[in-house]
C-alpha cells in the first residue's frame, strides 16, 4: 500500500476514534454530549479515507479492492457515506451508536497493513496481551451478567403479564431495576470488549504482521463484537427490552463462548 495512502487512512482512523468515544459516552451515560464534535470528526475522517482510497487506486492502477485490507477500507467508507447520507436525510442520530464503533474498528483493521514495529521488550509484549485478555474476560463476564438479567427480566415480565403473583417471582427484582442492571452491564461490557478487540488487533498486527487477519478463529471474535454492537444499538435506539433483548443477549453469550473456545486454539494455529 502506498505510504501516503496509509497515512491518510490512519488519520481517518484517528478521527473515527472520536466517534467511538462518543458511542461509549452515550452507552454509559446515555447523553449525547459529544455527538457534534464526533460527527464533525467523522465527516473529516470520511474525507481523509476517500483521499486514501483514491490515491491507492491511482498508484496501483486498479480499483482499490484488491485484497482484504483495501476491501475493508472501502467497505468502511461506504458505511460512513451511507450514514452521512441517512443523517442528512433523516437526522437519525441514534444510528451513530452502531456506526461509529463499526467504522472505527473496520478502518483500524484496514490500517494495520504494513508491519511497522517490533516489540520494544518482552514484558511490553506480554503486558499488552494480558490487558487484552483481562478486558475480554471482563467483557464476557458483563455479557453473562446481562444475559442472566435479561432472562430474569423476561420471567418477571411474563409473570406480570399473566397477572400471577407466585411467591417465586416475588424474589425477582423489579423490572426497572433489572433494566438498569442490563443497561449498566451491557455498557460496561461493550467498553471492555471494544478496547480489548482494539488492543488484541494491534498486538496481533505487531506479532504476526498480516497473517492473522484471515484466520477463521479471529473472525469469530469480530462477529461476537458485531453482535454486541447490534445489541447496544437496538437497545439505545429502539429500547429493545424483554424477549428480543434476552434472545440477542443469549446469542451474544453463545458467540462469546465460541470465541473463547476458538482463542484457546489460536496460539497453536497461528504458530503453525
Amino acid at each position: 500500500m502506498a505510504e501516503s495512502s496509509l497515512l491518510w487512512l490512519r488519520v481517518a482512523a484517528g478521527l473515527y476514534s472520536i466517534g467511538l468515544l462518543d458511542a461509549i459516552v452515550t452507552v454509559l451515560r446515555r447523553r449525547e454530549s459529544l455527538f457534534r464534535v464526533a460527527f464533525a470528526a467523522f465527516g473529516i475522517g470520511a474525507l481523509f479515507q476517500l483521499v486514501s482510497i483514491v490515491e491507492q487506486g491511482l498508484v496501483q492502477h486498479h480499483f482499490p479492492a484488491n485484497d482484504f485490507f483495501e476491501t475493508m477500507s472501502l467497505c468502511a467508507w461506504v458505511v460512513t457515506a451511507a450514514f452521512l447520507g441517512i443523517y442528512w436525510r433523516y437526522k437519525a442520530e441514534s444510528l451513530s451508536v452502531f456506526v461509529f464503533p463499526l467504522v472505527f474498528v473496520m478502518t483500524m483493521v484496514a490500517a494495520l497493513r504494513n508491519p511497522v514495529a517490533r516489540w520494544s521488550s518482552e514484558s511490553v509484549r506480554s503486558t499488552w496481551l494480558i490487558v487484552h485478555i483481562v478486558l475480554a474476560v471482563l467483557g464476557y463476564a458483563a455479557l453473562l451478567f446481562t444475559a442472566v438479567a435479561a432472562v430474569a427480566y423476561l420471567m418477571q415480565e411474563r409473570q406480570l403479564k399473566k397477572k400471577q403473583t407466585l411467591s417465586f417471582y416475588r424474589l425477582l427484582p423489579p423490572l426497572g431495576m433489572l433494566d438498569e442492571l442490563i443497561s449498566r452491564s451491557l455498557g460496561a461490557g461493550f467498553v471492555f470488549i471494544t478496547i480489548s478487540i482494539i488492543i488484541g488487533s494491534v498486538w496481533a498486527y505487531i506479532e504476526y504482521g498480516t497473517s492473522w487477519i484471515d484466520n477463521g478463529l479471529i473472525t469469530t471474535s469480530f462477529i461476537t463484537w458485531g453482535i454486541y454492537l447490534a445489541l447496544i444499538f437496538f437497545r439505545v435506539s429502539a429500547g429493545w427490552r424483554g424477549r428480543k433483548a434476552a434472545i440477542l443477549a443469549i446469542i451474544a453469550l453463545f458467540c462469546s463462548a465460541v470465541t473463547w473456545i476458538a482463542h484457546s486454539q489460536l496460539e497453536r494455529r497461528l504458530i503453525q
Partner: protein
Amino acid sequence: MKLLLTGLSHKTAPVHLREKLAIPEAGLPNALRELQNMGASEAVILSTCNRVEIAVTSLDHEEPGAVVERFLKEWQGSAAAFEGHLYRLEAREAIQHVFRVAASLDSMVVGEPQVLGQLKSAYAVAKAEGAVGGLLETVLTRAFGVAKRVRTETGIGQMAVSVSYAAVELARKIFGSLQGHTVMIIGSGKMGELAAKHLHRSGAKRIIVTNRTWERAQEMAAVFNGHAVEYTRFAAMLPEVDIVIASSGAPHYILTRDDMHRVIAARKNKPMFLIDIAVPRNIDPAVNEIEGVFLYDVDDLEGVVNANIQERTKQAAQAEVIVTDEVERMMSRLKLEEVTPTIISLQEQLEEIRAAEVARTIRRMPPLTLDQQQQIEAQIEAMTKSIVNKIAHGPISELRRNAGQPEGVQVIDAIRKVFHLQE
C-alpha cells in the same frame, strides 16, 4: 409471680361492646394507677378499635383475676356486661397471646403492621407510669422481638391486601422505585383518586390529571400539586407518562391497541403500567398483549389481592411455628428464673458453712513453716469445695428439673426446709 391477660377482640365481641370497654388514651395513666392500687404488681392496657386487653401480674399469694374484676366493676360499671365475650388467659397462654398479637397473627387483616405500633405505645405509657418492670416487661419486650422475627423470617407483611395498595405494589414491581415517575389520572373515580394518592405517597410526585370537565381536572390536580390537561390533549401526553389510572365514565374504550402501539414506540419500549378501574372498562384489554405494556383492570387487581391474602395465610402458619418456639424459650427462661434465687441461696449457705469450718480447722493447726501452712491450706480449700459441690449437685439438678412443674413448688419448699434456707 402470676400473669393474667383479660380482654376482648374483634373475634369475640361486636363493636358496641368493644367501644364500651375501650379506654381512651388520655385515661390510660389513671387506669394503670388504679390497677396498681387494687393490688396489681404490673399492668399494661392495650385499647384499640379492634381489641381491649388488660394484662396484669401479681405476687404469688394475690389473685390477679380478682384485681381485674374489681377494676372492671369500678371503671366500666360491671364485668357481667362483657361476660361470654371476655377471654382470660394465664401464664403460658397469656404469653402466647401477647406474642401472637404483636406479630399481627390475631389481627383482622393478618400481617397488618399497626397493632405492633399500638402495643409499643401501650407499653410506653405503662413504662412512663412505672407500671411495668418485671415479668410483664420481659414478656412485652420479647413480644416486640418476636414480631420483628416474624416479619423478617416470613413474608407476612409484604403483600398488599387492598386494591389500591396492590396497584402500588405492582407499580413497584415494574418500575422499582417510583421516584421520578409520572402518573396520569383519567376521570375522577374515587378508587382512582385513592390509588393515585398511594402512588403519590410512594414517590411518584409528577401527577397529570385529565377530565372531560375542566374544573374537576383542576380541582384534583390541586390535591396532588400536579397539573391539569385538557381531555382532548391527554393522548398526546401519554408517551411521557409511566402509570395511567383510568377511571372515567366513558361508555367505550378511550385507549385502543393502536393508540398504545404508537405510545410505546414513542417511549422506545419503556414499560408502562395501565390501571383500568373504570366500569365499563376504559382501556381495550388487547392492549396487554403489547410488549412493555402491563394492563390491570379491577378484576385483575382483586385477583392479586386474593392471591396475597392466601399467601399471607400460608405465611401465618410459618409465623405460628415461630411464636410457639418463642413461647417455649420464654417459658424455660421464666422457669429458670423461678428457681434461680433458691439455687443461689443454697450455694451461699453451703459456702458459708464450708468457709467457717475451714477457718476453724486452720486456727487449730499446730505451728508449721509458712511453706507447709500454705500447702495444707490449699489442700483443705480444694477438698472442702469439692465436697460441697458434690453435695449441692443433687438438690440443684433436682431444682432445675422441677422448675415450672406442677409439683415443683413442693420440691422447692422441701429443699428450702432441708437446708434451712431463708425466704
